[in-house]
């Protein structure tokens, strides 16, 4: 039993990742985004309020809402995987950024 807790079924994790999704709407309701895992974008919906803004403002608002949606997916997915598997997963573990290589052997000397 303990071993099962330590090594969760890869299929379970795969399913949780595939189902992960978060919907975020900007404060002024102009932009609604549905995001999936790994930076995936499922929907971008621009509401009437969006067209009262300038192009520059709208572009910035889409980027902001995208980032919020991706952060929300990572947060929810990390919480779900931790709950389902007992593993301690942080949202940063799912961000997919390149890890910092740290100092080289020469730099350490």
């Amino acid at each position, binding site marked *: 039993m303990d071993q099962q807790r330590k090594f969760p079924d890869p299929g379970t994790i795969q399913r949780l990742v595939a189902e992960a999704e978060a919907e975020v709407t900007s404060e002024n309701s102009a932009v609604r985004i549905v995001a999936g895992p790994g*930076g995936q*974008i499922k*929907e*971008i*919906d*621009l509401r009437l309020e*969006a*067209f009262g803004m*300038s*192009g*520059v403002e*709208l*572009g*910035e608002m*889409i*980027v902001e809402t*995208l*980032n919020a949606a*991706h952060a929300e997916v990572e947060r929810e997915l990390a919480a779900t995987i931790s709950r389902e598997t007992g593993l301690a997963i942080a949202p940063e573990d799912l961000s*997919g*950024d*390149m890890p910092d*290589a740290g100092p*080289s*052997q020469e730099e350490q000397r």
Partner: protein
Amino acid sequence: MTDRPDPQEMMARLEQMQREAEATMRKYEELRAEMGADAVEAYSEDGLVRVRLDADGKVAEIHIDESAMRQRQSLGRVVHAVIDEAVATHAVKMADMAQALVGDKIDVMALMNEHMPPEMRERARDNLGRRD
């Protein structure tokens, strides 16, 4: 008498592995600088929407020309399509870098081709060519 590994030999092997890993990281950084990994951009067909990704492939900037604001019905779809194209461009660039790193040990491009439609690949290549 015993098959127990020699600690000195093991240490030498570990150091060798560390040297190889560092050499790979150096090569990666060189390639990254050479290929300009910081700038990936894609444009809509009419050039009114531009998307720029950062080095990690995340959306850093979306520029929408004021005249595009009249496209109420389609603007969201256009922005989405340009982001998809920018992401594909970044993926092709990363695949190029990975291929240069692993040489002919793995056919990275073939692996990528399995997951990207040919027309998207072509547009991604065009974007990289435009930048070069």
